[in-house]
Protein backbone atom coordinates (compact mmCIF):
# COMPACT_ATOMS: atom_id res chain seq x y z
CA UNK A 1 0.00 0.00 0.00
CA UNK A 2 2.82 2.37 0.92
CA UNK A 3 4.57 1.50 -2.32
CA UNK A 4 1.44 2.25 -4.32
CA UNK A 5 1.09 5.54 -2.46
CA UNK A 6 4.72 6.35 -3.30
CA UNK A 7 4.31 5.43 -6.96
CA UNK A 8 1.23 7.62 -7.31
CA UNK A 9 3.01 10.54 -5.58
CA UNK A 10 5.72 10.12 -8.18
CA UNK A 11 3.13 10.27 -10.96
CA UNK A 12 1.70 13.49 -9.51
CA UNK A 13 5.02 15.36 -9.43
CA UNK A 14 6.04 13.77 -12.74
CA UNK A 15 3.04 15.36 -14.46
CA UNK A 16 4.28 18.80 -13.40
CA UNK A 17 7.83 17.97 -14.59
CA UNK A 18 6.23 17.00 -17.87
CA UNK A 19 4.62 20.42 -18.28
CA UNK A 20 7.98 22.15 -17.79
CA UNK A 21 9.53 19.80 -20.33
CA UNK A 22 6.69 20.31 -22.85
CA UNK A 23 7.66 23.99 -23.09
CA UNK A 24 11.30 23.12 -23.55
CA UNK A 25 10.67 20.45 -26.15
CA UNK A 26 8.37 22.80 -28.08
CA UNK A 27 11.12 25.40 -28.40
CA UNK A 28 13.70 22.77 -29.26
CA UNK A 29 11.46 21.08 -31.80
CA UNK A 30 10.68 24.27 -33.66
CA UNK A 31 14.06 26.02 -33.47
CA UNK A 32 16.74 23.42 -32.64
CA UNK A 33 17.79 25.56 -29.69
CA UNK A 34 18.15 24.22 -26.16
CA UNK A 35 16.82 26.83 -23.76
CA UNK A 36 19.03 26.77 -20.69
CA UNK A 37 16.95 29.63 -19.23
CA UNK A 38 13.80 27.52 -19.17
CA UNK A 39 13.88 27.00 -15.41
CA UNK A 40 13.86 30.78 -15.06
CA UNK A 41 10.47 30.96 -16.82
CA UNK A 42 9.21 28.65 -14.08
CA UNK A 43 10.83 30.91 -11.48
CA UNK A 44 9.08 33.95 -12.97
CA UNK A 45 5.77 32.07 -12.90
CA UNK A 46 6.30 31.38 -9.22
CA UNK A 47 7.11 35.02 -8.45
CA UNK A 48 4.12 36.21 -10.45
CA UNK A 49 1.92 34.03 -8.22
CA UNK A 50 3.75 35.17 -5.13
CA UNK A 51 3.33 38.87 -5.81
CA UNK A 52 -0.33 38.44 -6.71
CA UNK A 53 -0.75 36.85 -3.31
CA UNK A 54 1.53 39.17 -1.32
CA UNK A 55 0.21 42.44 -2.78
CA UNK A 56 -3.44 41.75 -3.43
CA UNK A 57 -4.18 38.52 -1.52
CA UNK A 58 -5.03 36.80 -4.79
CA UNK A 59 -4.79 33.04 -4.83
CA UNK A 60 -2.26 31.58 -7.31
CA UNK A 61 -5.12 29.64 -8.83
CA UNK A 62 -6.98 32.85 -9.71
CA UNK A 63 -3.89 34.61 -11.05
CA UNK A 64 -2.89 31.57 -13.12
CA UNK A 65 -4.36 32.82 -16.41
CA UNK A 66 -2.62 36.14 -15.89
CA UNK A 67 0.66 34.36 -15.11
CA UNK A 68 0.29 32.33 -18.31
CA UNK A 69 -0.29 35.48 -20.38
CA UNK A 70 2.56 37.31 -18.70
CA UNK A 71 5.00 34.50 -19.37
CA UNK A 72 3.78 34.16 -22.94
CA UNK A 73 4.69 37.83 -23.33
CA UNK A 74 8.09 37.33 -21.70
CA UNK A 75 8.89 34.37 -23.96
CA UNK A 76 7.77 36.08 -27.16
CA UNK A 77 9.58 39.31 -26.23
CA UNK A 78 12.75 37.39 -25.43
CA UNK A 79 12.57 35.86 -28.87
CA UNK A 80 12.09 39.24 -30.55
CA UNK A 81 14.90 40.95 -28.63
CA UNK A 82 17.57 38.26 -28.26
CA UNK A 83 16.91 34.81 -29.71
CA UNK A 84 16.01 36.12 -33.18
CA UNK A 85 19.66 37.14 -33.59
CA UNK A 86 21.07 33.64 -33.00
CA UNK A 87 18.67 31.55 -35.07
CA UNK A 88 21.42 30.57 -37.50
CA UNK A 89 24.41 31.10 -35.21
CA UNK A 90 26.84 28.29 -34.34
CA UNK A 91 25.69 25.93 -31.60
CA UNK A 92 28.25 27.30 -29.17
CA UNK A 93 26.84 30.80 -29.29
CA UNK A 94 23.29 29.44 -28.99
CA UNK A 95 24.23 27.49 -25.87
CA UNK A 96 25.91 30.47 -24.28
CA UNK A 97 23.17 32.94 -25.16
CA UNK A 98 20.47 31.04 -23.32
CA UNK A 99 22.94 30.15 -20.60
CA UNK A 100 23.77 33.82 -20.10
CA UNK A 101 20.04 34.59 -19.99
CA UNK A 102 19.71 32.06 -17.20
CA UNK A 103 22.32 33.84 -15.08
CA UNK A 104 20.89 37.25 -16.02
CA UNK A 105 17.34 36.30 -14.96
CA UNK A 106 18.57 34.83 -11.68
CA UNK A 107 20.58 37.99 -11.03
CA UNK A 108 17.63 40.25 -11.84
CA UNK A 109 15.33 38.24 -9.57
CA UNK A 110 17.87 38.53 -6.79
CA UNK A 111 18.29 42.24 -7.43
CA UNK A 112 14.60 43.10 -7.39
CA UNK A 113 13.22 40.49 -5.02
CA UNK A 114 16.22 39.55 -2.82
CA UNK A 115 17.63 36.03 -2.44
CA UNK A 116 15.22 35.22 0.42
CA UNK A 117 13.07 32.12 0.32
CA UNK A 118 9.42 33.13 0.00
CA UNK A 119 6.31 31.04 0.37
CA UNK A 120 2.59 31.39 -0.08
CA UNK A 121 1.24 30.31 3.27
CA UNK A 122 -2.47 30.75 2.70
CA UNK A 123 -4.15 29.20 -0.26
CA UNK A 124 -7.62 27.99 -1.04
CA UNK A 125 -5.92 24.69 -1.65
CA UNK A 126 -5.14 22.99 1.63
CA UNK A 127 -5.93 19.64 3.10
CA UNK A 128 -5.84 16.15 1.78
CA UNK A 129 -7.66 14.05 -0.72
CA UNK A 130 -8.40 10.51 0.38
CA UNK A 131 -8.97 7.91 -2.28
CA UNK A 132 -9.36 4.16 -1.74
CA UNK A 133 -7.25 4.23 1.38
CA UNK A 134 -4.55 6.44 -0.17
CA UNK A 135 -3.96 10.05 0.83
CA UNK A 136 -2.63 12.89 -1.28
CA UNK A 137 -2.19 16.59 -0.57
CA UNK A 138 -4.84 18.65 -2.34
CA UNK A 139 -2.26 21.14 -3.76
CA UNK A 140 -0.31 18.26 -5.35
CA UNK A 141 -3.44 16.79 -6.87
CA UNK A 142 -4.56 20.15 -8.25
CA UNK A 143 -1.05 20.87 -9.57
CA UNK A 144 -0.98 17.52 -11.37
CA UNK A 145 -4.49 18.06 -12.72
CA UNK A 146 -3.64 21.56 -13.93
CA UNK A 147 -0.46 20.24 -15.54
CA UNK A 148 -2.33 17.51 -17.39
CA UNK A 149 -4.95 19.99 -18.58
CA UNK A 150 -2.30 22.42 -19.85
CA UNK A 151 -0.25 19.69 -21.53
CA UNK A 152 -3.44 18.37 -23.12
CA UNK A 153 -4.34 21.85 -24.34
CA UNK A 154 -0.92 22.28 -25.97
CA UNK A 155 -1.18 18.86 -27.57
CA UNK A 156 -4.68 19.67 -28.85
CA UNK A 157 -3.49 23.04 -30.16
CA UNK A 158 -0.66 21.46 -32.13
CA UNK A 159 -2.83 18.67 -33.43
CA UNK A 160 -6.15 20.29 -34.26
CA UNK A 161 -5.72 24.01 -34.99
CA UNK A 162 -4.44 25.72 -38.13
CA UNK A 163 -1.94 27.75 -36.12
CA UNK A 164 -0.72 24.61 -34.40
CA UNK A 165 -0.32 22.87 -37.74
CA UNK A 166 1.68 25.85 -39.00
CA UNK A 167 3.95 25.54 -35.97
CA UNK A 168 4.45 21.83 -36.59
CA UNK A 169 5.14 22.52 -40.24
CA UNK A 170 7.84 25.03 -39.34
CA UNK A 171 9.38 22.49 -36.98
CA UNK A 172 9.41 19.84 -39.72
CA UNK A 173 10.84 22.01 -42.51
CA UNK A 174 11.48 25.72 -42.15
CA UNK A 175 12.00 26.41 -45.86
CA UNK A 176 9.04 24.41 -47.10
CA UNK A 177 6.79 26.03 -44.51
CA UNK A 178 7.97 29.47 -45.62
CA UNK A 179 7.10 28.58 -49.23
CA UNK A 180 3.58 27.74 -48.04
CA UNK A 181 3.28 31.28 -46.72
CA UNK A 182 3.99 30.56 -43.06
CA UNK A 183 5.93 33.36 -41.40
CA UNK A 184 8.75 31.56 -39.59
CA UNK A 185 9.51 34.56 -37.39
CA UNK A 186 5.94 34.53 -36.06
CA UNK A 187 6.07 30.79 -35.47
CA UNK A 188 9.35 31.04 -33.57
CA UNK A 189 7.94 33.82 -31.38
CA UNK A 190 4.83 31.69 -30.81
CA UNK A 191 6.95 28.70 -29.80
CA UNK A 192 8.90 30.79 -27.29
CA UNK A 193 5.71 32.35 -25.94
CA UNK A 194 3.98 28.98 -25.54
CA UNK A 195 7.09 27.35 -24.11
CA UNK A 196 7.51 30.09 -21.52
CA UNK A 197 3.80 30.03 -20.69
CA UNK A 198 3.94 26.25 -20.02
CA UNK A 199 6.84 26.71 -17.60
CA UNK A 200 5.09 29.70 -16.04
CA UNK A 201 1.88 27.72 -15.45
CA UNK A 202 3.97 24.93 -13.89
CA UNK A 203 5.56 27.55 -11.62
CA UNK A 204 2.15 28.90 -10.61
CA UNK A 205 0.91 25.38 -9.85
CA UNK A 206 3.97 24.66 -7.71
CA UNK A 207 3.97 28.02 -5.93
CA UNK A 208 1.76 26.90 -3.04
CA UNK A 209 3.92 23.93 -2.10
CA UNK A 210 7.47 24.92 -3.11
CA UNK A 211 9.72 27.60 -1.64
CA UNK A 212 10.14 30.49 -4.08
CA UNK A 213 13.66 31.88 -4.63
CA UNK A 214 15.74 33.22 -7.54
CA UNK A 215 17.56 29.94 -8.24
CA UNK A 216 14.57 27.64 -7.90
CA UNK A 217 14.72 26.89 -11.63
CA UNK A 218 17.97 24.96 -11.20
CA UNK A 219 16.02 22.17 -9.49
CA UNK A 220 13.77 21.72 -12.49
CA UNK A 221 15.87 22.41 -15.55
CA UNK A 222 17.95 19.23 -15.22
CA UNK A 223 14.80 17.14 -14.98
CA UNK A 224 13.34 18.96 -17.96
CA UNK A 225 16.48 18.14 -19.98
CA UNK A 226 16.18 14.50 -19.00
CA UNK A 227 12.51 14.40 -19.97
CA UNK A 228 13.09 16.07 -23.31
CA UNK A 229 15.92 13.69 -24.18
CA UNK A 230 14.02 10.67 -22.92
CA UNK A 231 10.81 11.54 -24.70
CA UNK A 232 12.57 12.49 -27.89
CA UNK A 233 13.48 16.06 -28.81
CA UNK A 234 10.41 17.95 -29.96
CA UNK A 235 7.87 15.33 -28.93
CA UNK A 236 5.12 16.64 -26.61
CA UNK A 237 3.61 13.20 -26.00
CA UNK A 238 7.09 11.80 -25.36
CA UNK A 239 7.82 14.45 -22.73
CA UNK A 240 4.49 13.64 -21.06
CA UNK A 241 5.19 9.91 -20.69
CA UNK A 242 8.81 10.52 -19.75
CA UNK A 243 7.58 12.90 -17.02
CA UNK A 244 5.47 10.18 -15.43
CA UNK A 245 8.33 7.68 -15.69
CA UNK A 246 10.91 10.03 -14.17
CA UNK A 247 8.55 11.20 -11.42
CA UNK A 248 8.02 7.58 -10.37
CA UNK A 249 11.73 6.70 -10.62
CA UNK A 250 12.65 9.75 -8.53
CA UNK A 251 10.12 9.24 -5.74
CA UNK A 252 10.31 5.46 -5.56
CA UNK A 253 14.12 5.54 -5.85
CA UNK A 254 14.31 8.06 -3.02
CA UNK A 255 12.01 5.86 -0.95
CA UNK A 256 13.76 2.54 -1.56
CA UNK A 257 17.32 3.79 -1.68
CA UNK A 258 18.63 7.12 -0.41
CA UNK A 259 16.98 10.48 -1.16
CA UNK A 260 20.47 11.96 -1.65
CA UNK A 261 20.97 9.79 -4.73
CA UNK A 262 17.65 10.54 -6.44
CA UNK A 263 19.37 12.82 -8.93
CA UNK A 264 22.10 10.26 -9.65
CA UNK A 265 19.46 7.65 -10.37
CA UNK A 266 17.49 9.88 -12.73
CA UNK A 267 20.57 11.15 -14.58
CA UNK A 268 22.01 7.64 -14.90
CA UNK A 269 18.75 6.44 -16.41
CA UNK A 270 18.96 9.35 -18.82
CA UNK A 271 22.55 8.51 -19.85
CA UNK A 272 21.58 4.89 -20.34
CA UNK A 273 18.71 5.83 -22.64
CA UNK A 274 20.60 8.38 -24.74
CA UNK A 275 23.37 5.84 -25.11
CA UNK A 276 21.15 2.96 -26.17
CA UNK A 277 18.58 5.04 -28.03
CA UNK A 278 19.90 8.53 -28.80
CA UNK A 279 16.64 9.64 -30.44
CA UNK A 280 14.73 9.09 -27.17
CA UNK A 281 11.83 6.80 -26.39
CA UNK A 282 9.35 8.42 -28.79
CA UNK A 283 11.59 10.52 -31.03
CA UNK A 284 12.02 10.06 -34.73
CA UNK A 285 15.43 8.71 -35.67
Amino acid at each position, binding site marked *: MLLLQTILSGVLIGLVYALVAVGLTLIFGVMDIVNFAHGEFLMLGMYSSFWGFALWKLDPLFTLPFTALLLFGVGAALYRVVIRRITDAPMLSQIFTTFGLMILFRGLAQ*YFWSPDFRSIDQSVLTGKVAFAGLQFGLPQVVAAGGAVATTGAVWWFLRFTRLGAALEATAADKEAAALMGIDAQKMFALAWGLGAACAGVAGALLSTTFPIFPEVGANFILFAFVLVALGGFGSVAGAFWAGILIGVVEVVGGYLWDPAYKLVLVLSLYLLVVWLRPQGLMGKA
Partner: protein
Amino acid sequence: MSRAVLGRTIALAALGLAALFPLVVTSATWQNTAILMLMVAQMGVAWNILGGYAGQVSLGHAAFFGTGAYVSTLLALRFGLTPWAGMFAGAGVAAALSLVIGWPCFRLKGHYFAMATIAVGEIVQAVVNGWDLLGGAVGLSLPLHPTGFWPMVFNRSKLPYHYIALGLLLFTLLVNWLVTRSHVGYYLRAIKDEPDAARSLGVSLTRYKLYAIALSSGLAAMGGTLYAQKELLIDPGSTLSTGLSIKMSLVAIMGGVGTLTGPVIGAVLLTAIEEASRMGFGGTGRGTDMVVYGLLIVLIAVYQPSGVLGWIKQRFPASAPAAPPAPASPVEGAAP
Protein backbone atom coordinates in the same frame (compact mmCIF):
# COMPACT_ATOMS: atom_id res chain seq x y z
CA MET B 1 55.98 44.23 -38.80
CA SER B 2 54.10 41.17 -39.92
CA ARG B 3 51.23 39.86 -37.90
CA ALA B 4 53.01 36.72 -36.76
CA VAL B 5 55.94 38.79 -35.44
CA LEU B 6 53.55 41.22 -33.76
CA GLY B 7 51.69 38.35 -32.15
CA ARG B 8 54.90 36.80 -30.88
CA THR B 9 56.05 40.14 -29.47
CA ILE B 10 52.78 40.63 -27.62
CA ALA B 11 52.92 37.07 -26.26
CA LEU B 12 56.48 37.57 -25.00
CA ALA B 13 55.53 40.87 -23.40
CA ALA B 14 52.54 39.20 -21.71
CA LEU B 15 54.79 36.40 -20.45
CA GLY B 16 57.27 38.95 -19.07
CA LEU B 17 54.44 40.82 -17.39
CA ALA B 18 53.07 37.62 -15.85
CA ALA B 19 56.54 36.66 -14.57
CA LEU B 20 57.33 40.05 -13.06
CA PHE B 21 53.86 40.99 -11.79
CA PRO B 22 54.02 39.53 -8.24
CA LEU B 23 57.52 40.97 -7.75
CA VAL B 24 56.33 44.48 -8.55
CA VAL B 25 52.80 44.41 -7.13
CA THR B 26 52.85 43.40 -3.49
CA SER B 27 49.16 43.81 -2.63
CA ALA B 28 47.83 40.40 -1.57
CA THR B 29 44.49 41.01 -3.31
CA TRP B 30 46.12 41.77 -6.64
CA GLN B 31 48.53 38.89 -6.32
CA ASN B 32 45.63 36.57 -5.64
CA THR B 33 43.71 37.90 -8.65
CA ALA B 34 46.77 37.25 -10.84
CA ILE B 35 47.03 33.64 -9.62
CA LEU B 36 43.32 33.21 -10.26
CA MET B 37 43.75 34.49 -13.83
CA LEU B 38 46.56 32.01 -14.47
CA MET B 39 44.58 29.11 -13.04
CA VAL B 40 41.40 29.95 -14.95
CA ALA B 41 43.46 30.40 -18.13
CA GLN B 42 45.01 26.96 -17.64
CA MET B 43 41.54 25.38 -17.29
CA GLY B 44 40.32 27.17 -20.40
CA VAL B 45 43.31 26.04 -22.47
CA ALA B 46 42.77 22.46 -21.27
CA TRP B 47 39.05 22.62 -22.12
CA ASN B 48 39.85 24.05 -25.53
CA ILE B 49 41.54 20.84 -26.72
CA LEU B 50 38.21 19.02 -26.61
CA GLY B 51 35.71 21.87 -26.93
CA GLY B 52 37.64 24.10 -29.29
CA TYR B 53 39.79 21.93 -31.55
CA ALA B 54 37.60 18.82 -31.59
CA GLY B 55 34.37 20.84 -31.37
CA GLN B 56 32.87 18.65 -28.64
CA VAL B 57 31.32 21.11 -26.20
CA SER B 58 31.74 19.67 -22.72
CA LEU B 59 29.82 21.33 -19.92
CA GLY B 60 30.94 18.80 -17.34
CA HIS B 61 34.69 19.37 -17.26
CA ALA B 62 34.64 20.24 -13.55
CA ALA B 63 34.33 16.48 -12.99
CA PHE B 64 37.93 16.13 -14.24
CA PHE B 65 39.22 19.22 -12.44
CA GLY B 66 37.70 17.87 -9.24
CA THR B 67 39.15 14.39 -9.88
CA GLY B 68 42.62 15.93 -9.95
CA ALA B 69 41.98 17.82 -6.72
CA TYR B 70 40.56 14.81 -4.90
CA VAL B 71 43.09 12.21 -6.11
CA SER B 72 46.19 14.21 -5.15
CA THR B 73 44.63 15.25 -1.83
CA LEU B 74 43.64 11.70 -0.93
CA LEU B 75 47.10 10.39 -1.85
CA ALA B 76 48.69 13.09 0.29
CA LEU B 77 46.38 12.40 3.23
CA ARG B 78 46.59 8.60 3.13
CA PHE B 79 50.12 7.91 1.93
CA GLY B 80 51.88 11.23 2.35
CA LEU B 81 52.54 11.34 -1.37
CA THR B 82 53.88 14.64 -2.62
CA PRO B 83 51.35 16.57 -4.74
CA TRP B 84 53.99 16.86 -7.45
CA ALA B 85 53.47 13.14 -8.06
CA GLY B 86 49.81 13.32 -7.04
CA MET B 87 49.26 15.81 -9.84
CA PHE B 88 50.22 13.22 -12.45
CA ALA B 89 48.32 10.47 -10.66
CA GLY B 90 45.24 12.71 -10.71
CA ALA B 91 45.75 13.41 -14.40
CA GLY B 92 45.96 9.67 -15.07
CA VAL B 93 42.79 8.90 -13.14
CA ALA B 94 40.93 11.77 -14.80
CA ALA B 95 42.06 10.65 -18.26
CA ALA B 96 40.91 7.10 -17.54
CA LEU B 97 37.58 8.39 -16.23
CA SER B 98 37.18 10.58 -19.30
CA LEU B 99 37.62 7.57 -21.59
CA VAL B 100 34.89 5.69 -19.72
CA ILE B 101 32.60 8.71 -20.03
CA GLY B 102 33.63 9.67 -23.54
CA TRP B 103 33.15 6.31 -25.14
CA PRO B 104 29.33 6.25 -24.76
CA CYS B 105 28.87 10.04 -24.91
CA PHE B 106 30.68 10.47 -28.23
CA ARG B 107 27.77 8.67 -29.87
CA LEU B 108 25.88 11.92 -29.25
CA LYS B 109 26.31 15.05 -31.31
CA GLY B 110 26.05 18.79 -30.71
CA HIS B 111 23.50 19.82 -28.12
CA TYR B 112 22.96 16.20 -27.10
CA PHE B 113 26.62 15.76 -26.20
CA ALA B 114 26.68 19.03 -24.25
CA MET B 115 23.60 18.03 -22.25
CA ALA B 116 24.98 14.55 -21.53
CA THR B 117 28.19 16.10 -20.15
CA ILE B 118 26.13 18.30 -17.82
CA ALA B 119 24.46 15.12 -16.56
CA VAL B 120 27.84 13.44 -16.04
CA GLY B 121 29.14 16.45 -14.13
CA GLU B 122 26.07 16.54 -11.90
CA ILE B 123 26.29 12.80 -11.23
CA VAL B 124 29.94 13.05 -10.16
CA GLN B 125 29.13 15.99 -7.89
CA ALA B 126 26.16 14.21 -6.30
CA VAL B 127 28.17 11.00 -5.77
CA VAL B 128 31.08 12.83 -4.12
CA ASN B 129 28.59 14.78 -2.00
CA GLY B 130 27.37 11.53 -0.49
CA TRP B 131 30.72 9.69 -0.30
CA ASP B 132 32.16 9.66 3.22
CA LEU B 133 35.63 8.53 2.13
CA LEU B 134 35.87 11.78 0.19
CA GLY B 135 34.52 13.90 3.03
CA GLY B 136 31.01 14.22 1.58
CA ALA B 137 29.62 17.71 1.27
CA VAL B 138 32.13 19.06 3.83
CA GLY B 139 35.08 18.11 1.68
CA LEU B 140 38.70 17.34 2.57
CA SER B 141 41.29 19.58 4.11
CA LEU B 142 45.01 19.06 3.80
CA PRO B 143 46.97 18.87 7.06
CA LEU B 144 48.71 22.01 8.23
CA HIS B 145 52.19 21.60 6.87
CA PRO B 146 55.04 23.97 7.41
CA THR B 147 56.06 25.71 4.21
CA GLY B 148 57.92 23.35 1.95
CA PHE B 149 58.54 22.43 -1.65
CA TRP B 150 57.66 18.74 -1.52
CA PRO B 151 54.31 19.07 0.23
CA MET B 152 53.62 22.05 -2.12
CA VAL B 153 52.55 24.23 0.79
CA PHE B 154 53.61 27.86 0.97
CA ASN B 155 52.24 29.81 3.90
CA ARG B 156 54.40 32.91 4.02
CA SER B 157 54.11 34.21 0.50
CA LYS B 158 51.89 33.55 -2.47
CA LEU B 159 54.77 33.88 -4.92
CA PRO B 160 55.44 30.15 -5.30
CA TYR B 161 51.81 29.48 -6.23
CA HIS B 162 52.01 32.20 -8.84
CA TYR B 163 55.01 30.59 -10.50
CA ILE B 164 53.61 27.07 -10.26
CA ALA B 165 50.39 28.32 -11.89
CA LEU B 166 52.39 30.10 -14.58
CA GLY B 167 54.50 27.00 -15.18
CA LEU B 168 51.43 24.79 -15.41
CA LEU B 169 49.80 27.20 -17.84
CA LEU B 170 52.89 27.22 -20.05
CA PHE B 171 53.03 23.41 -19.92
CA THR B 172 49.36 23.20 -20.92
CA LEU B 173 49.92 25.67 -23.76
CA LEU B 174 52.92 23.61 -24.91
CA VAL B 175 50.86 20.40 -25.00
CA ASN B 176 48.14 22.27 -26.85
CA TRP B 177 50.61 23.63 -29.38
CA LEU B 178 52.17 20.19 -29.92
CA VAL B 179 48.70 18.77 -30.54
CA THR B 180 47.87 21.39 -33.16
CA ARG B 181 51.18 20.69 -34.87
CA SER B 182 50.74 16.91 -34.93
CA HIS B 183 48.53 14.87 -37.23
CA VAL B 184 46.10 14.50 -34.30
CA GLY B 185 45.43 18.23 -34.41
CA TYR B 186 44.67 18.14 -38.14
CA TYR B 187 42.36 15.17 -37.66
CA LEU B 188 40.57 16.90 -34.80
CA ARG B 189 39.92 19.96 -36.91
CA ALA B 190 38.70 17.78 -39.72
CA ILE B 191 36.36 16.00 -37.30
CA LYS B 192 35.02 19.34 -36.11
CA ASP B 193 34.50 20.93 -39.53
CA GLU B 194 33.76 18.00 -41.82
CA PRO B 195 33.00 14.90 -39.78
CA ASP B 196 31.51 12.97 -42.69
CA ALA B 197 34.40 13.76 -45.02
CA ALA B 198 36.90 12.82 -42.31
CA ARG B 199 35.17 9.51 -41.75
CA SER B 200 35.03 8.74 -45.41
CA LEU B 201 38.81 9.23 -45.56
CA GLY B 202 39.21 6.59 -42.89
CA VAL B 203 39.71 8.81 -39.84
CA SER B 204 38.30 7.03 -36.80
CA LEU B 205 36.20 9.81 -35.26
CA THR B 206 35.76 8.17 -31.88
CA ARG B 207 39.44 7.33 -31.51
CA TYR B 208 40.60 10.90 -32.04
CA LYS B 209 37.83 12.34 -29.90
CA LEU B 210 38.98 9.97 -27.14
CA TYR B 211 42.57 11.22 -27.52
CA ALA B 212 41.25 14.77 -27.18
CA ILE B 213 39.11 14.13 -24.10
CA ALA B 214 41.89 12.20 -22.34
CA LEU B 215 44.42 15.00 -22.88
CA SER B 216 41.93 17.71 -22.08
CA SER B 217 40.71 16.10 -18.86
CA GLY B 218 44.21 15.11 -17.71
CA LEU B 219 45.39 18.69 -18.02
CA ALA B 220 42.26 20.00 -16.28
CA ALA B 221 42.96 17.57 -13.42
CA MET B 222 46.47 19.00 -12.97
CA GLY B 223 44.84 22.40 -12.46
CA GLY B 224 42.64 20.76 -9.84
CA THR B 225 45.68 19.59 -7.86
CA LEU B 226 47.12 23.09 -7.88
CA TYR B 227 43.78 24.47 -6.67
CA ALA B 228 43.72 21.96 -3.79
CA GLN B 229 47.26 22.91 -2.75
CA LYS B 230 46.57 26.62 -2.91
CA GLU B 231 43.33 26.47 -0.92
CA LEU B 232 44.27 23.45 1.25
CA LEU B 233 40.53 22.72 1.36
CA ILE B 234 38.38 21.17 -1.32
CA ASP B 235 34.68 20.42 -1.41
CA PRO B 236 32.24 19.40 -4.18
CA GLY B 237 30.81 22.92 -4.44
CA SER B 238 34.14 24.53 -5.29
CA THR B 239 35.78 21.82 -7.42
CA LEU B 240 32.95 19.91 -9.11
CA SER B 241 30.17 22.41 -9.77
CA THR B 242 28.60 22.92 -13.19
CA GLY B 243 29.34 26.63 -12.73
CA LEU B 244 33.05 25.80 -12.87
CA SER B 245 32.54 23.71 -16.02
CA ILE B 246 30.81 26.69 -17.59
CA LYS B 247 33.62 29.01 -16.65
CA MET B 248 36.21 26.82 -18.40
CA SER B 249 34.26 26.89 -21.62
CA LEU B 250 33.28 30.52 -21.25
CA VAL B 251 36.86 31.83 -21.14
CA ALA B 252 37.67 29.88 -24.29
CA ILE B 253 34.68 31.41 -26.06
CA MET B 254 35.39 34.92 -24.81
CA GLY B 255 38.96 34.83 -26.07
CA GLY B 256 38.46 32.81 -29.21
CA VAL B 257 37.46 29.18 -29.31
CA GLY B 258 39.86 26.79 -31.00
CA THR B 259 42.82 29.17 -30.77
CA LEU B 260 45.96 28.68 -28.72
CA THR B 261 45.96 31.92 -26.75
CA GLY B 262 42.24 32.72 -26.87
CA PRO B 263 41.41 31.09 -23.51
CA VAL B 264 44.24 33.02 -21.85
CA ILE B 265 42.85 36.33 -23.10
CA GLY B 266 39.35 35.24 -22.06
CA ALA B 267 40.53 34.24 -18.59
CA VAL B 268 42.23 37.59 -17.99
CA LEU B 269 39.14 39.48 -19.15
CA LEU B 270 36.57 37.35 -17.36
CA THR B 271 38.48 37.28 -14.06
CA ALA B 272 38.99 41.04 -14.22
CA ILE B 273 35.29 41.63 -14.88
CA GLU B 274 34.24 39.17 -12.18
CA GLU B 275 36.52 40.68 -9.56
CA ALA B 276 35.57 44.21 -10.53
CA SER B 277 31.83 43.56 -10.39
CA ARG B 278 32.25 41.65 -7.15
CA MET B 279 34.20 44.51 -5.59
CA GLY B 280 31.85 47.09 -7.06
CA PHE B 281 28.49 45.49 -6.41
CA GLY B 282 29.04 42.10 -4.77
CA GLY B 283 28.97 43.38 -1.20
CA THR B 284 25.38 44.49 -1.59
CA GLY B 285 24.23 40.85 -1.90
CA ARG B 286 21.74 41.94 -4.51
CA GLY B 287 23.03 39.89 -7.38
CA THR B 288 24.32 42.83 -9.38
CA ASP B 289 27.46 40.85 -10.16
CA MET B 290 25.29 38.11 -11.65
CA VAL B 291 23.42 40.65 -13.77
CA VAL B 292 26.67 42.02 -15.17
CA TYR B 293 28.08 38.52 -15.73
CA GLY B 294 24.92 37.24 -17.42
CA LEU B 295 24.51 40.29 -19.63
CA LEU B 296 28.12 40.03 -20.73
CA ILE B 297 27.77 36.36 -21.68
CA VAL B 298 24.66 37.11 -23.73
CA LEU B 299 26.26 40.07 -25.51
CA ILE B 300 29.40 38.11 -26.42
CA ALA B 301 27.45 35.03 -27.50
CA VAL B 302 25.09 37.07 -29.68
CA TYR B 303 27.41 39.68 -31.16
CA GLN B 304 30.93 38.30 -30.97
CA PRO B 305 30.81 34.48 -30.88
CA SER B 306 34.33 34.25 -32.30
CA GLY B 307 35.71 36.00 -29.24
CA VAL B 308 38.33 38.70 -28.83
CA LEU B 309 40.75 37.12 -31.30
CA GLY B 310 37.97 36.83 -33.86
CA TRP B 311 37.16 40.49 -33.37
CA ILE B 312 40.79 41.46 -33.90
CA LYS B 313 40.92 39.40 -37.08
CA GLN B 314 37.79 41.08 -38.45
CA ARG B 315 38.86 44.54 -37.37
CA PHE B 316 42.42 44.31 -38.64
CA PRO B 317 42.47 41.87 -41.54
CA ALA B 318 45.94 40.68 -42.46
CA SER B 319 47.20 42.91 -45.30
CA ALA B 320 49.60 40.33 -46.72
CA PRO B 321 48.26 36.93 -47.72
CA ALA B 322 48.49 34.55 -44.80
CA ALA B 323 51.28 32.01 -44.50
CA PRO B 324 51.09 28.88 -46.72
CA PRO B 325 48.75 26.70 -44.59
CA ALA B 326 45.11 27.52 -45.27
CA PRO B 327 44.18 31.00 -43.99
CA ALA B 328 40.86 29.64 -42.78
CA SER B 329 42.53 28.02 -39.81
CA PRO B 330 42.42 30.39 -36.87
CA VAL B 331 45.29 28.67 -35.09
CA GLU B 332 48.03 29.55 -37.53
CA GLY B 333 47.01 33.12 -38.09
CA ALA B 334 46.20 34.45 -34.68
CA ALA B 335 48.31 32.43 -32.32
CA PRO B 336 51.75 33.73 -31.58
